[in-house]
């Protein structure tokens, strides 16, 4: 039961934190609850499909289908997060003034919702498909009774959801003028972290050179499987021993999004002024 709880927690954590950040970034936007819920449900449905197709996906591309599929999913999420941040930066001045009521006055937030729906659905799909597969395998194994598995999975899910909720509630305490900076900053890190994962998947399938692996090793200081390491890995892409290529992807993604946000900010938003 404990192993089910731990694995489900680990898989849920990443999706829950992403959901927490996005829920915070869209505080006050009308209709967000519906979009975010739909994203989670679509993600769960997709997880079951992907989990049932694991073997077929894996066999694509001479056994590298899983890496390519995950890289593709993550790549789409990175693009969507970049788009969201640049879009929001365009409305930065208005957002900074009344961040908490942006939904009422600025349509930008509502327009970004379909993008965020996709981000959430794909984040849930990626983590959810592994969870579904694990639970399926556990139930096949036959050494565990069904109730123990369900209980364990429920505990893990609850703990992961609690972490996402805690992050969200923490966000709500941030002073209004910092709110936009913090949420868009975290989305920027999230996108860069995922880009670095894309690089790692392509290295694992031998489509990209690693360029020095690892570039550094800080696993003695903070290992990737420690609680803090796991949290930082999800939030900002901390890696104790990254390949050079991962660092290049990380830095390039962060730099490109920042550049896009800066360029977008210089042009005032054409969208209707408040009131």
């Amino acid at each position: 039961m404990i192993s089910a709880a731990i694995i489900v927690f680990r898989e849920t954590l990443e999706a829950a934190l992403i959901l927490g950040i996005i829920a915070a970034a869209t505080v006050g936007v009308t209709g967000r609850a519906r979009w975010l819920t739909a994203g989670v449900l679509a993600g769960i449905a997709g997880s079951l499909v992907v989990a049932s197709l694991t073997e077929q996906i894996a066999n694509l591309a001479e056994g590298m289908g899983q890496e390519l599929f995950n890289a593709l999913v993550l790549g789409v999420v990175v693009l969507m997060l970049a788009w969201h941040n640049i879009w929001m930066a365009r409305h930065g001045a208005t957002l900074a003034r009344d961040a908490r009521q942006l939904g009422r006055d600025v349509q930008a937030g509502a327009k970004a919702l379909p993008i965020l729906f996709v981000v959430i659905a794909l984040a849930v799909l990626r983590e959810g498909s592994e969870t579904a597969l694990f639970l399926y395998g556990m139930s096949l194994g036959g050494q565990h009774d069904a109730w123990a598995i369900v209980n364990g999975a429920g505990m893990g899910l609850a703990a992961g959801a609690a972490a996402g909720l805690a992050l969200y509630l923490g966000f709500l305490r941030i002073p209004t003028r910092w709110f936009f900076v913090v949420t868009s900053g975290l989305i920027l890190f999230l996108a860069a972290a995922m880009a670095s994962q894309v690089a790692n998947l392509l290295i694992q399938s031998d489509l990209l050179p690693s360029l020095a692996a690892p570039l550094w090793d800080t696993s003695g200081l903070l290992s990737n499987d420690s609680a803090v390491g796991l949290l930082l890995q999800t939030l900002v892409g901390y890696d104790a021993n990254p390949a050079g290529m991962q660092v290049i992807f990380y830095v390039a993604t962060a730099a490109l999004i920042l550049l896009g946000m800066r360029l977008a900010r210089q042009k005032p938003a054409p969208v209707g002024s408040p009131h």
Partner: protein
Amino acid sequence: MSVFKASVFFAALVSSVAVAAPPEVHVVIKDHRFTPSEVKVPAGQKIRLIVDNQDATPEEFESHELNREKVIAGKSKATIYIGPLEPGRYPFFGEFNEATAQGVVVAE
């Protein structure tokens, strides 16, 4: 399912690229254990690690030290490229059965 279609296309593109084969190393998963549990590989070069999951249940090959993670369906094989590695010990485990599925890659 356009994501799926796109990945099929991408897959076809990739499989047409010929790659010089690095040395192969084999590991078997049976009864949620790795055999051999200690895998010796040459240091300083890329390795094709082939993991044959003979169990009916899926397993996830994972190693923080090797920076690798891959789900392997029941009764199937997976290829994972690792290295070039510095001489040393690189533990790995099966995330879905961590209590029993433990192993280490030794590069020398």
